[in-house]
């Protein structure tokens, strides 16, 4: 049966939306795309036939979609069946991603801090003690006054909020920080579905709270206790895993 152009576009659009949410290897994605396209085509064809038409129109597609599920649900269903075949990310790739994240974050926050401090330093120089030590040519300022304290507070809170946004909000929204994204890693729930902000918050607690000690301990926990599952302590608590997007598990591992 023929299909009108706008119906075809609508169908293709929906299938791509579904498959876009399925993080598996490309060959599988192509296969799923073909099968779902075929499915919706056949379903729409039934609909078109029922109303006596010889062409699949947009209304048939729309009717089928109305009866169908949310694209995310369909994607989640697929992810649940794929999760066991995805390769989980180990210590090395995750550590590299973390280092990259700190470099990127450091650059961004460094720039922001500079932007905040310059006006303060320029307009209220007397609020700071300026030190210039001869032997090593070191230069630093320390706050000495209420306005300077305000600047220090702004810098501190901006940095903290920046950390929350970078490590938690980004991961909760996209399932990855820029460092992870560059390495092709994704954070998923243990059942393969996408994480939400709750998981992002819980699993990143050791990164945001306290100093680097916590994340190091957490990473060690992974190496010592949960190496098989490739989960940090806080991954276990949040029930999250980190996978190599679109990479099948090696045969020898299964």
């Amino acid at each position, binding site marked *: *049966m*023929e*299909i009108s152009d706008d119906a075809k576009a609508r169908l293709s659009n929906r299938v791509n939306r579904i498959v876009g949410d399925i993080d598996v290897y490309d060959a599988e994605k192509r*296969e*799923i795309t*073909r*099968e*779902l*396209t*075929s*499915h919706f*085509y*056949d*379903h729409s*064809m*039934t609909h078109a036939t029922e109303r006596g038409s010889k062409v699949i129109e947009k209304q048939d597609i729309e009717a089928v979609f109305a009866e*169908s*599920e949310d694209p995310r*649900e*369909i994607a*989640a*269903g*697929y992810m*649940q*069946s*794929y999760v066991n*075949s995805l390769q989980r990310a180990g210590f090395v790739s995750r550590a590299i991603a973390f280092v990259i994240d700190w470099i990127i974050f450091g650059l961004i926050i460094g720039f922001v801090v500079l932007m905040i401090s310059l006006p303060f330093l320029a307009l209220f120089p007397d609020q700071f003690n300026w030190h210039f030590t001869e032997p090593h040519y070191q230069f630093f300022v320390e706050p000495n006054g209420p306005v300077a304290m305000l600047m220090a507070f702004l810098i501190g809170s901006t940095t903290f909020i920046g950390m929350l946004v970078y490590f938690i909000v980004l991961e909760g929204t996209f399932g990855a920080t820029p460092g992870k994204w560059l390495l092709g890693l994704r954070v998923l729930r243990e059942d393969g579905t996408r994480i939400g902000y709750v998981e992002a918050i819980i699993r990143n607690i050791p990164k945001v709270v306290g100093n680097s000690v916590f994340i190091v301990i957490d990473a060690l926990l992974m190496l010592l206790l949960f190496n098989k599952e490739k989960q940090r302590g806080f991954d276990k608590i949040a029930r999250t895993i980190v996978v190599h997007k679109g990479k099948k598990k090696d045969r020898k591992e299964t």
Partner: protein
Amino acid sequence: MQEDIDKWLKELKKGSTKLSILSLLRSGDKYGYELIHDLEVRTGGVIIIKESNAYPALHSMEGDGLVESYWKETGEGIPPRKYYRITARGQGFLEEMIREWKRYVNAMDEIWGDGNGNQR
């Protein structure tokens, strides 16, 4: 109350997806939409499997060697269809599933029936 019943039914149906799909494949190779549609029609709308359930189940059964798939051209401007065929292993698994299902139904019967499927 209806909402709770629906939730319970949903879980129940999810557990019997493989059973219903394999049963249907016993009578011949079918493609995804055909399976979903036939199930609905044959059971008078009682068994309606959603896409998020059916296709992942088929994929998982293929991984387990219970079914095989192949693409078939349809011509006439219709996109090719992915057909599924039950394997020998799938047949064996199905027979075992039916045996267990009957055992379960009988057990349930013992709990709330009088042995003839009638409520006590």
